[in-house]
């Protein structure tokens, strides 16, 4: 009796325990009764054992996937951080450079105003300004009051010492008061001269040197005006000496951009 393809299929399934019910009973009966079936089953069993005993071949390498294999974008966190930092530094650098450039423009205008030549011109004009200021009526009046008090005090003392009559002293005081008041009014120099003449005529010749001395001292407020612009402040404006803060920031941000860009590039190259 020949074993058909169907019988082989039944024997193979029986061997694997894949038969049940009627099929199982039928095949089991055939195997018990037919030596041919027994031999066929034995050969299938051996074949299966040979296949199962085949050595397992280890994978020659790891088959782990990379982002590039599956078309994913690189998610290297370090690379992303460095790239972000480099971008941030670039923006900051640009911002600082804009500030610096804008500042340079406005400083350029300011520096023209405070250039050595303009400062010298301003310094040269100071005496003229001061002289003009001295000629101002209000100032002159104030100065005149101070001078009046000084002169009155001096002449009162002189007369007291010389033992002059009280009437003469009073007359001198009146004359002096008029003369000093009119002295400040430069618009009417003739009046001052006339007063001086009057004083001389009234025996006040001793007053002339004092008034002349006072008149010669009037330009003395100039130093006070010059002190307002001390040389060290004029010739050394703030920030002009050494590197400015903006320049330092530019350097720092520039170095940051270069550093972070280089780090990001290195990371990306390593990941490839």
């Amino acid at each position, binding site marked *: 009796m020949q074993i058909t*393809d169907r019988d082989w299929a039944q024997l193979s*399934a029986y061997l694997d325990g894949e038969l049940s019910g009627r099929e199982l009973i039928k095949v089991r009966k055939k195997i018990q009764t037919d030596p041919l079936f027994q031999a066929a089953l034995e050969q*299938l069993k*051996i*074949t299966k054992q040979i296949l199962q*005993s*085949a050595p397992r071949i280890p*994978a020659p390498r790891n088959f782990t*996937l990379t*982002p590039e294999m599956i078309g994913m974008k690189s998610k290297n966190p370090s690379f992303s951080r460095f790239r972000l930092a480099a971008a941030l530094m670039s923006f900051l650098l640009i911002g600082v450079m804009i500030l610096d450039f804008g500042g340079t423009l406005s400083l350029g205008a300011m520096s023209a105003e405070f250039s050595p030549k303009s400062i010298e011109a301003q310094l040269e004009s100071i005496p003229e300004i001061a002289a003009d200021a001295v000629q101002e009526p209000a100032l002159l009046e104030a100065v005149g009051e101070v001078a009046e008090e000084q002169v009155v005090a001096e002449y009162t003392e002189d007369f007291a010492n010389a033992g002059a009559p009280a009437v003469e002293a009073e007359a001198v005081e009146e004359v002096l008061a008029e003369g000093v008041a009119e002295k400040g009014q430069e618009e009417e120099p003739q009046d001052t001269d006339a007063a001086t003449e009057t004083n001389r005529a009234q025996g006040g010749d001793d007053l002339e040197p004092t008034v002349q001395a006072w008149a010669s001292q009037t330009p003395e407020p100039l130093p006070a005006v010059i002190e307002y612009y001390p040389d060290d402040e004029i010739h050394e404006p703030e920030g002009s000496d050494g590197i400015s803060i903006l320049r330092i920031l530019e350097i720092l941000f520039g170095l940051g951009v270069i550093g972070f860009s280089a780090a990001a590039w290195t990371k990306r190259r390593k990941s490839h």
Partner: protein
Amino acid sequence: MDLKEQIKNALKGDLDSFNQIVLEYQNLVYNQAYRIIGEPDAAEDAVQEAFISAYKKLHTYRGGSFKSWLLRIVSNACYDEFRRRKRQPVAPLYPENQNGDETESVSWLEDTEEKPEEFVLRNELSEAIQICLDRLEFEFRTIVVLVDLQGMDYASAAKVIDCPLGTVKSRLARARRNLKDCLQGFRELLPVEFRHLGEV
């Protein structure tokens, strides 16, 4: 981390989790591919393609046996590789002798840098099996590898090859018969206990 969690994380785009699965299954998958294709390089290509395909189609896994799901992808990748190699013939697996006839000896696979006796001891059974498997048609080869080498049951194998149980049963029986006949030619290479494999 268990398989379910790895799959869950991989579905969220965690490639590291999927690579853990790859490391766990790569030997099984490579054996499947190597036994079906019969060439190490082609098997490597098929395995890599299979894992890439598995990652991209992971959302189609609906539970059940992950091994069956993965081996189905591998079988398809092997089939694609098999067809590709058929269109672009490579060096024949069976070398021809001076008369142009195929030789059945495995001695042509011998690595000359290795001592012959060591080589034979290490590879004789594996090579004999591979030669006989290569002589089977692709469909029969796949089913016998799934059931006898990977130890799958008929139902799982049927899912892998997407065929009814009856087809699995008939193909497997036919494949075993052919293998039995083929292995008789390598009787001297088989372990002693298998050498009485006779003709029926």
